[in-house]
């Protein structure tokens, strides 16, 4: 038997009692059980209803699979338990969970999440949120098999959430009298700005990309600096990665889940590469350059896998700002400043142009797009005069362009997230309805 929740959207009045009850019972921060709204802006003629969601205690939990430190476990009833004393605050589970169930507690540095009122339920008492619901909209549910939720905006991704959603088709859209006399336009969803929040990850990955590229290039071409600089860059990357953690002292746990966590693998490879780069610097020649290059390649791929596991879109998989492609550009700069480089450059510029959608971009991001697209032809042209000054300028323009693309990668990175999924679905519905109304008006 698996345990989860059953929610009837037709009965929920969004009173927040479930949210408060969870906080009061478990001492967790407000929002551990959250209320999401369909049509939060109450735009006519659409229905307005809410979804109360905490953890769905999935059959194939992404949080558990992705957690590098093995802080998650599954008990016999399928409840996903979580040990805050093991958490290092890397927030990877928040990227992996499509329901936003794990939440970082910024004050404490670790993750918090619904544990199905573990102690309470084993006493035979109902979970706090369900017992608190004043309209009976939220209930405990125990089932052998939970059927698919089957609502367009509810991300399922094949992980088997233990969640039953009812009442959505019945959720009324009242006839409003008098009809609204003005058109209301929904706010476009403001996606979380990952760029500023993840500065430490951006720096970390840029350093790994640079170091790996140098190691790759030096394996391919003897006159590339392949000793000191990569070692320093890798050491810097490791240091900066600590800034990303809520509880850096627990970082030693990071490789524990190498079996299933892409993050564990990445951390393991980054550590190995750092060590090898250091050895290569102080004891040159001991490590085979091909081996170094291979570990570099594996490291780059492992960095990308961390992201691909959280955001499975092709937009990301084809992104020129991903570690692997970035390293290919940088390596090509060192080994072939010629036709191949031009080809790569044009491809990258094309990709940037194709990704660009102006309406959604903040000024900084828009600038980075322009800069990235122009940096490639600019660097290429600066190479031709052949003087030292112009060549240096070309290098600067080229490398900052690659860095810009890496920043854009974080802007484009968007793990599946219930809030954004609802907003995007609602906005699509809204647009369709408006187009239909306009068409009807046009025809008649």
């Amino acid at each position, binding site marked *: 038997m698996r345990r989860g929740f059953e929610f009837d959207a037709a009965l929920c009045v969004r009173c927040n009692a479930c949210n408060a009850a969870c906080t009061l019972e478990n001492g967790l921060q407000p929002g551990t059980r959250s209320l999401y709204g369909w049509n939060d802006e109450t735009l006519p003629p659409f229905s307005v209803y809410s979804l109360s969601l905490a953890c769905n205690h999935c059959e194939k939990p992404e949080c558990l699979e992705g957690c590098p430190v093995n802080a998650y476990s599954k008990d016999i009833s399928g409840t996903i338990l979580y040990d805050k004393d093991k958490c290092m605050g890397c927030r990877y589970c928040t990227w992996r969970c499509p329901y936003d169930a794990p939440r970082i507690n910024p004050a404490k540095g670790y993750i918090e999440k619904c544990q199905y009122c573990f102690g309470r339920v084993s006493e035979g008492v109902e979970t706090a949120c369900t017992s608190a619901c004043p309209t009976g909209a939220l209930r405990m549910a125990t089932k052998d098999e939970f059927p698919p939720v089957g609502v367009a905006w509810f991300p399922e991704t094949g992980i088997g959430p233990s969640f039953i959603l009812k009442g959505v088709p019945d959720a*009324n859209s009242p006839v409003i009298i008098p009809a609204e*006399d003005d058109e*209301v336009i929904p706010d476009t969803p403001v996606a979380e700005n990952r760029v500023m929040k993840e500065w430490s990850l951006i720096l970390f990955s840029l350093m790994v990309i640079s170091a790996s590229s140098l190691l790759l290039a030096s394996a391919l071409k003897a006159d590339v600096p392949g000793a000191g600089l990569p070692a320093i860059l890798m050491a810097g990357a490791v240091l900066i990665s600590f800034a990303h953690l809520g509880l850096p002292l627990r970082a030693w746990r990071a490789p524990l889940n190498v079996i299933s966590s892409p993050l564990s693998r990445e951390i393991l490879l980054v550590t190995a590469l750092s060590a090898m780069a250091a050895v290569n610097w102080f004891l040159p020649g001991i490590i085979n350059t091909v081996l170094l290059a291979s570990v570099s390649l594996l490291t780059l791929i492992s960095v990308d896998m961390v992201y691909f596991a959280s955001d499975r879109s092709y937009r990301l998989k084809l992104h020129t700002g991903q570690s692997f492609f970035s390293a290919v550009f940088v390596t090509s700069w060192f080994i072939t400043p010629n036709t191949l480089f031009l080809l790569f450059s044009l491809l990258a510029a094309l990709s940037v142009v194709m990704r660009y959608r102006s309406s959604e971009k903040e000024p900084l991001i828009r600038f980075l797009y322009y800069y990235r697209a122009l940096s490639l032809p600019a660097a290429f042209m600066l190479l031709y005069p052949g003087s030292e000054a112009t060549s240096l300028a070309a290098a600067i323009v080229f490398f900052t362009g690659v860095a810009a693309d890496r920043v854009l990668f974080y802007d484009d990175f968007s793990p599946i997230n219930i809030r954004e999924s609802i907003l995007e679905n609602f906005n699509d519905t809204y647009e369709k309805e408006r187009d239909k109304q306009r068409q009807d008006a046009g025809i008649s």
Partner: protein
Amino acid sequence: MKEFITACPRNCYSTCSFRVFTEDGKVKRILPYRDNLATPEGPCIKGLSYLEREFSPSRILYPHKRTEKGAFIRISWEEAFSTISQKLLEAREKHGPHSVLFYKGSGHSGLSNDIASLFWKTFGGATTTYGNLCWPAGLEAVRLTLGDVRHNVPWDLANAQLIIMWGKNPAETNVQEMIHVDIAKKNGAKLVVIDPRRTPTADKADILVRPYPGTDAALALAVAKLIIDKGLADHEFIDKYVSGFEKFAASLEISPEQAAKITGIPAENIEQLALMIGQSRAVTIVAGFGLQRYTNGGQTIRSILSIPVITGMIGRKGCGFNYANLQGYIFDAVKEPLCYYPDHELDKPFRREISMAKFGTDFFSLREPGIEVAWIERGNPVTQLPGSKEVKRALHSVPFKVVVDQFITDTAAMADIILPAKGLFEQADVVSSYWHPYVQYKPAVIDPPGEVKPESEIYFELARRMNMEAAIISPAAYDEWLLNRISGTGGFSREELFRAPVIPDQAEQTAFRERDFTTPSGMIELFSETAEKLWGVNPLPSYTPPDDFGETDLPFRLMTPNIASRIHSQFGNLEVIRGVVEPPAWEMSPSDARRLGIRSGDRIRVYNSSGEVTGKVRVTARTKKGSLVFPNGIWLDEGGGVNDLITPAETDMGYGAAFHNTRVGAEKESA
């Protein structure tokens, strides 16, 4: 853990029963009490928050006095009692008992409050307030029409075919009523909400009718006329039980088109509404309290009530007019609304009274004596009374003020002495609801924390120092007094009441099933001479536009409703509430916002001749064009002070406060 059944003593329809579990002198858990048919599910967010509220680090646990520098310091009970008793005796000696103001709010209900009245009576009387901020215009309207204020039990709503929520938003203010609405809907009932706002209740409705604020009577009378004209009135019922029908029918001149002009509701929709009501077998109209907080509020409720009267929907299952149900109020000699009125016989000789609604203005007309000492309990007049500026000025002018409260509210912050108030778990009491018929025993489940004493004990200790203790119930005798107070009142034994909430024998599941209308004529009075005599209003239900207090040129009607996370000014200070609920904001319609160039998150200045308030805006289609909405009861530290804008004025009957007549202007705050 020990388990008890208790009840929430707040000024709230639901007055939920719930179970509490205690351990080591603390309440550890709150669970629903499923056998209360009205509130079988969980308590609301406020009820849950008692887990924090009663044990909050900001709760006042000791008596405090204000120092000359204005800070509060802890003092002993001895010092508090002797200072207060001295001040009281001195004021009575020099200026007479009326120089003491006794102000009570609705913050804690229960029979224990009787001891306060007893104290002030024994003291020789005091200056008190008459009227009530909340609901009396509607109570009086129902009393004038039906003779008594009651309605069918809440769970009878499940039998309705058509539910009309008229100005009521139970999803926020009486959330357990939605349980019964949901059952009715499952049985096929239609839900119509009539409200200028698109409330969370309206989100569940089949039809939402949004009239201009204060014009509900015009809509109701147009519907009544259509019902009569279309032959949908129940003449058999009318002939038997209704007095004044002919006069009423003859007085109805309002056409759907005229009503459309007044209310903004298209004529064809008014006809549709009349047909829905007239052709349905079981209609329950549930009227809220907000729509009677207007200068025409009592007449509005009489007008709406005329609809179930002429369709014969009184005294039947699934039918009726649900305004308030005082069937659980079995202990009171004088029931609401009569007990709000000045000079009723019971304690006439003792009291000098001023209007609660006009406190700020009437206070300054008090002469010989002026107010020397103020005692304020169960209330927060600074945030709750209309015209807060004047209220604050009035309180400032009082030389010595005692406030009894659990927290340093905006009112308590003005006190000279703050006394800690008991929490709901700390003294046995008996609580009734104005929605369901249960009488509920609320046991003492933990000892008061710190040096908190129940008010009954505070009064006794003061009385001892003022040679009045013979008349006041001693702490040792309290439980016995409470039990004597309830014995023989409702056909239940003490033991039955201790065990679980009880429905008194005299309470009817279907109110007025016996057609016992205790009006002067013994019939339902559409034509009420009493209305004219007592209040100078039209003896028939009628519509007069709501007063604008001379500010017709200001574009917005200000509405200050109650919201789910608070009861008036209570609960909003708690961490759990502040953590879980969005902070309060001024709600403005999208079209008004566009016209004024305002976006969500901007700060606006809201003003009228009484004052101005600034705050953040939330642009939302929930608010009707021409309205501004800000919840009442927000403390000043959270951007409250909205009552600065409210003109102190009484409703047309019942001495209520006409909060929602206020007009305001608004503009983007210049940076």
